[in-house]
């Protein structure tokens, strides 16, 4: 009964979303206040229907209804409650439902918190969001209904993929999806602006908080994914340039560019056409990401065997929205003229460079991600593009980006002089270079890679430069506006991230060893002594646990344990790494296999500064949240 109600709710949601789309767009076009009101009310109805459907799937999973194919494939009676709930988005069908719920939630938020918007503009935004909902709900219903029955019902479920049985999974996908789908709001604002021809500084001010909110979610989602990969499946790697990682990273880069370009549009009324184009790109890349993950066209750790018809459907959606928006853009762009100019050394110039570099990075990553597809389609051979490509094409634009950022943050609008900050910035730059030398030579005793010193210097410069404003205000005892404080903190996060990446890329030590009980191996001054293995029983798996004694010189550190788990149902082995965290490094042990001769294989790793990667991303998201709480976004004045 519950699954049928779930399907029914989904069908209802589709119809209501169609109403939302029609009455929103048509109501605004013909200026029918009543229609626009209908569109607005249907937003809540869509949300309720999708939420009901989502609850139905959650209940089916929680209650072990193995007559539902999705439940039978992704759950098991021994699966702990947390993972039964997380299994809702553990596979394709359910994650689409999550997509739909996120979209409905964003639309609801827009409907609730947009009292300051002109009615027809709001109706258009909601209409566009409704149209996207229609696309995704019909995709779910036609190709991937999560409530499809399994006849005859399974006696027992096939269990959730063990790799997904982890607390971080409970938050990584929802966060990432929230960000992905959040780009739809910026897209809807852009399309509404093109339809109404109203693209002014007020428009930019309305769009900014939504874009920022999506960006915060995307930042957190990507960081969580990287952290999860690090300890769960990556054997200590934190980024693999996997197509699906790229699929989430490209929208992030473009959304980051969008946030900055919106700042210029709001403050100076410039870059209008470009801003609109970026909003279209950001959403298109999110859709492309969905297509890449869902179609299985790319070899990836995420994309498993998938149904080609699903890929075609998403591709059709992708083409509809991109072509539609770009056609609109072609007709309307000329009416979105920017007026005014700016000096070469001005904040506008720096933000222009920021945009150019971010988009260049996204473009180069896109080429590397899609190239295997192109080659395959043209029958030119099966290839994959290796991480070294991505490392190079990513660093070329981002190294200057971080350096320019540290200076550009303090440039003033319109006309350029950095006199006010030149002295302080020079001092910070000199200190950063000295600091970088100190870290490399005193702490790690070697210069590392060619870019190590540059990386540390850029990171320290970014941190120092971000702190100029908060520090000055604090000295004067004044409160900073939230937006300025948020900006400083977000850029500080970039600095921390750069420090983390530089440290872990330059000084990681990794060794695969074969040890018998009592034997030890040393890496980077840490001695690991294998203490032997013992069996451990988990709720739905059994495991062999290896124990290690760790010494740093003469000092004994707490023991590290690592498990090789075998889940009872799927019989897949899974490695649970042992990680010792300290402020300046991680120690990482992963148990391999019994090599015979009473020896075990294991991977030992020393990962300096790796935590600063994720801390940096968290700090960036925190900065975004603080900026989001700025008072000027909460002003509810109606702009005629």
């Amino acid at each position, binding site marked *: 009964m519950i699954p049928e109600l779930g399907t029914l709710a989904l069908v209802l949601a589709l119809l209501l979303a169609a109403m939302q789309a029609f009455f929103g767009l048509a109501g605004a076009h013909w200026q029918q206040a009543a229609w626009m009101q209908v569109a607005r009310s249907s937003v809540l109805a869509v949300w309720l229907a999708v939420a009901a459907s989502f609850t139905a799937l959650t209940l089916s999973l929680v209650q072990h209804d193995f007559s539902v194919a999705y439940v039978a494939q992704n759950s098991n009676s021994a699966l702990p409650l947390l993972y039964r709930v997380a299994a809702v988005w553990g596979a394709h069908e359910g994650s689409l439902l999550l997509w739909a719920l996120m979209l409905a939630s964003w639309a609801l938020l827009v409907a609730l918190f947009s009292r300051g918007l002109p009615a027809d503009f709001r109706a258009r935004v909601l209409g566009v969001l409704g149209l996207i909902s229609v696309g995704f709900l019909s995709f779910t219903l036609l190709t991937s209904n999560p409530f499809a029955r399994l006849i005859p019902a399974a006696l027992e479920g096939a269990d959730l993929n063990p790799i997904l049985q982890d607390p971080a999974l409970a938050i990584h996908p929802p966060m990432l999806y929230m960000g992905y789908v959040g780009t739809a709001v910026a897209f809807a604002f852009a399309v509404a602006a093109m339809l109404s021809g109203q693209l002014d500084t007020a428009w930019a001010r309305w769009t900014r908080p939504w874009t920022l909110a999506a960006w915060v979610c995307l930042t957190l989602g990507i960081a969580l994914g990287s952290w999860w990969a690090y300890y769960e499946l990556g054997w200590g790697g934190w980024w693999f340039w996997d197509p699906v990682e790229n699929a989430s990273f490209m929208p992030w880069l473009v959304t980051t560019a969008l946030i900055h370009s919106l700042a210029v549009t709001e403050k100076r009324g410039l870059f209008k056409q470009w801003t609109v184009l970026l909003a279209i790109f950001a959403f298109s890349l999110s859709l492309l990401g969905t297509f890449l993950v869902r179609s299985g066209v790319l*070899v990836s750790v995420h994309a498993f065997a998938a149904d080609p018809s699903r890929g075609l459907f998403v591709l059709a959606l992708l083409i509809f929205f991109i072509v539609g928006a770009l056609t609109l853009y072609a007709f309307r762009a000329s009416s979105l003229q920017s007026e005014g100019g700016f000096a*070469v050394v001005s904040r506008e110039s720096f933000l222009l460079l920021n945009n150019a570099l971010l988009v260049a990075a996204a473009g180069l990553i896109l080429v590397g991600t899609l190239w295997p597809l192109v080659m395959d389609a043209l029958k030119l051979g099966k290839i994959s*593009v290796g991480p070294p490509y991505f490392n190079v094409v990513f660093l070329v634009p981002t190294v200057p980006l971080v350096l320019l950022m540290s200076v550009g943050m303090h440039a003033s609008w319109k006309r350029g002089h950095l006199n006010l900050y030149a002295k302080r910035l020079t001092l910070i730059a000199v200190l950063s270079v000295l600091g970088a030398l100190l870290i490399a030579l005193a702490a790690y005793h070697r210069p590392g890679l060619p870019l190590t010193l540059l990386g540390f210097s850029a990171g320290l410069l970014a941190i120092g430069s971000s702190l100029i404003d908060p520090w000055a205000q604090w000295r004067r005892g004044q409160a900073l506006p939230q937006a300025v404080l948020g900006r400083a903190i977000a850029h500080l996060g970039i600095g921390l991230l750069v420090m983390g990446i530089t440290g872990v890329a330059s000084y990681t030590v990794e060794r695969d060893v074969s040890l018998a009980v009592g034997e030890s191996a040393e890496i980077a001054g840490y001695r690991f002594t294998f203490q032997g293995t013992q069996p451990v029983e988990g709720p739905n798996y059994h495991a062999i646990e290896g124990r290690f004694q760790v010494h740093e010189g003469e000092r004994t550190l707490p023991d590290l344990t690592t498990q090789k788990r075998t889940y009872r149902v799927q019989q897949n082995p899974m490695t649970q790494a042992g990680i010792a965290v300290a402020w300046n490094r991680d120690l990482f042990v992963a148990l391999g296999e019994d090599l015979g001769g009473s020896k075990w294989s294991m991977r030992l790793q020393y990962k300096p500064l790796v935590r600063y990667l994720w801390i940096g991303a968290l700090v960036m998201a925190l900065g975004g949240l603080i900026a989001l709480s700025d008072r000027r976004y909460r002003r509810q004045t109606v702009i005629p």
Partner: protein
Amino acid sequence: MTPRQRRITWVVAILAGVGLAALVAVKAFDNNLLYFFDPSQVQAGLAPKGKSFRIGGMVTKGSVMRAPGSLEVRFVVTDFAHSVPVRYTGLLPDLFREGQGVIAHGRLQNGEFMADEVLAKHDEKYMPPEVAQSLKASAPALVTPYAPSRDTP
């Protein structure tokens, strides 16, 4: 500077930037394109000599051998028409098993594939698409069109 000159400066700067980026990209591309070959292609001499590539297929049952206590492992990758011996030193992925699909990255040396990375995907039902396609020709019975959906978001 007149506005016109300024505009030209910007255009030139942007073009130079784009050109430079393209140059870097092409250069990086050339060095990092990894081709995929199946054992039949390798045995036919189609794989490059002295350059890395990827090989994929099934691990032949009973072919995995290692000296007790040693990290070095040898196994045979096959597409059921031809096979290639592989040698690898290090930790094998959790899902590496005989009779399962793998992809190895490395180079050919005296007829043996010296792997520096071995990949087996998360799912026991999963077969890397390249492997599935190359097997379609040589052993169609082993390839199901697609396994039940099971994927990480």
